[in-house]
């Protein structure tokens, strides 16, 4: 598993992909947090990181499928999947190795935003006047959300050997799991009876719930299940190629 993990990480950082993902993420989040006057903390007059946590899922929606699209689509198109699957590696090792590598790249992109936390901490009046608990919770939420998006994106990548299709499918699935349930729940048909249940199927509900700083085991179980289901589906599809 670790041989696949190291290889993937090496590929990210020996090509542009790794640097591009990290810089695109940081630049777009940075612009929203500090530069654009509509959302900038400096104009907002509250020491808060809400901007980061409401915009990051949107950026991840595009960025994560772009990272994961190559996972299997590229290997299938180039035939290197045959190389991997005739080595003494199980499907489980190959897929988990790739999952951890993709996930780590996203975490690498997320880590530098800690600097924003310390900046805003210092800018608060008095210093340190911000809701650290909620921010910590939001980071946990973002961590699980990206884990789920990576699993969904990798699943999309197994469905095709065209990277563009893998990206579009991945972005669509991520969108669907994150936001579509919110809007489906608002349809009049489901009002009063099923709306809460349907909302709970989506990632958004659980992400918001964790972001409040309240780490509920039910939300964690939800995220872990989504990740597990998509990794399992990925393994199943890759095994079925036989």
């Amino acid at each position: 598993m670790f041989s696949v993990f190291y290889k993937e990480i090496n590929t990210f950082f020996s090509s542009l992909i790794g640097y591009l993902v990290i810089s695109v993420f940081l630049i777009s989040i940075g612009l929203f947090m500090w530069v654009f006057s509509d959302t900038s903390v400096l104009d907002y007059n509250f020491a808060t990181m809400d901007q980061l946590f409401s915009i990051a899922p949107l950026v991840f929606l595009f960025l994560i499928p772009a990272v994961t699209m190559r996972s299997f689509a590229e290997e299938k198109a180039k035939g290197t999947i045959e190389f991997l699957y005739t080595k003494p590696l199980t499907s489980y090792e190959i897929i988990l190795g790739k999952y951890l590598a993709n996930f780590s790249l996203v975490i690498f992109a997320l880590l530098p935003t800690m600097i924003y936390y310390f900046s805003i901490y210092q800018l608060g009046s008095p210093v340190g006047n911000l809701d650290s608990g909620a921010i910590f919770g939001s980071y946990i939420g973002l961590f699980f959300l990206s884990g789920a998006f990576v699993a969904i994106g990798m699943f999309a990548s197994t469905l095709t050997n065209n990277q563009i299709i893998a990206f579009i499918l991945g972005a669509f699935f991520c969108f669907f799991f994150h936001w579509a349930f919110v809007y489906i729940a608002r349809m009049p048909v489901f009002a009063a009876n099923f709306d809460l249940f349907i909302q709970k199927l989506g990632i958004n509900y659980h992400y918001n719930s964790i972001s409040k700083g309240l780490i509920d085991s039910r939300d964690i179980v939800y995220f872990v299940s989504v990740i597990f289901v998509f990794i399992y589906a990925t393994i199943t599809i890759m095994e079925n190629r036989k």
Partner: protein
Amino acid sequence: MSVIVKGLSKQFDHQFAVNQLSFEAHPGQILGFLGPNGAGKTTTMKMICCYIEPTEGTAEVEGYDIRTSPLMVRKQIGYLPEHNPLYEEMYVKEFLQFVASIHKIENKNARISDIIEMTGLGKEQNKIIGTLSKGYRQRVGLAQAIIHDPKVLILDEPTSGLDMNQLVDIRSLIRELGKEKTVIFSSHIMQEVQALCDRVVIISDGLLVANESIEKLSNRMSANQIIHVEFAQKNVSPVLFTHIEGVADVISDHGQFTFTSDSHSDIRKSIFDAAVKNGLTLLEMRQDKANVEDIFRKLTKSTSDV
């Protein structure tokens, strides 16, 4: 007992790509795996390497069954797939390090430099795989297949698309490896198989049509050899040659003769002697190289006749 294939079949959408195939390959032996395109060579090799699952039958590699212990099978095998898929963006050394780490090889760096020397990759070891020429790519493919010193080597058309010099190098490497390992090696070039292999398995439409030693096959091929001869004299009577032992048929056309033999002995010497005896000047004598397609046709025909 190294590789034992037992009644292996693979069905794709009601069509058999490989049908009830059985054969064996032993250590110290190079097994040539011949067949026209689409005969099922690649499918068979993929099944032995546990990349695809057989519909029926099974195979054993070093005593491990491909159905029940695919991981152990993959550990015993060094496999070079048909189109030699490699990670284009990786450096040669980086790639070999990756393969070595998959195989959990101890003393990685020493082994990698050994392999680089063995496959003649010395000059190219610090290049990106995508920039290598076809011949060097093939060497990288071979290097990744033998890095863990496997007992069994499965090479799917390792020589296709190489130029003469590269062919000679790769062939001598395969011959060297075949001394102690079990090598199964597919090709559609008869001459190559004749030069390299000890034993030949020929399949056609997924069916086994021949499984015999190279001598036996060569004998079969040498019967009915065709020899073209041209004399300086334009009006030579074919009767001069009909009495030669082994000549079955003589066709003459203005000094151009075509001889067909019916024995395994070489009739060229007898033809030359007869020409000298009759004071004829020989301009050209040429033997038709047995064409692989002809052999397939002949072999498939003979099996369907029986």
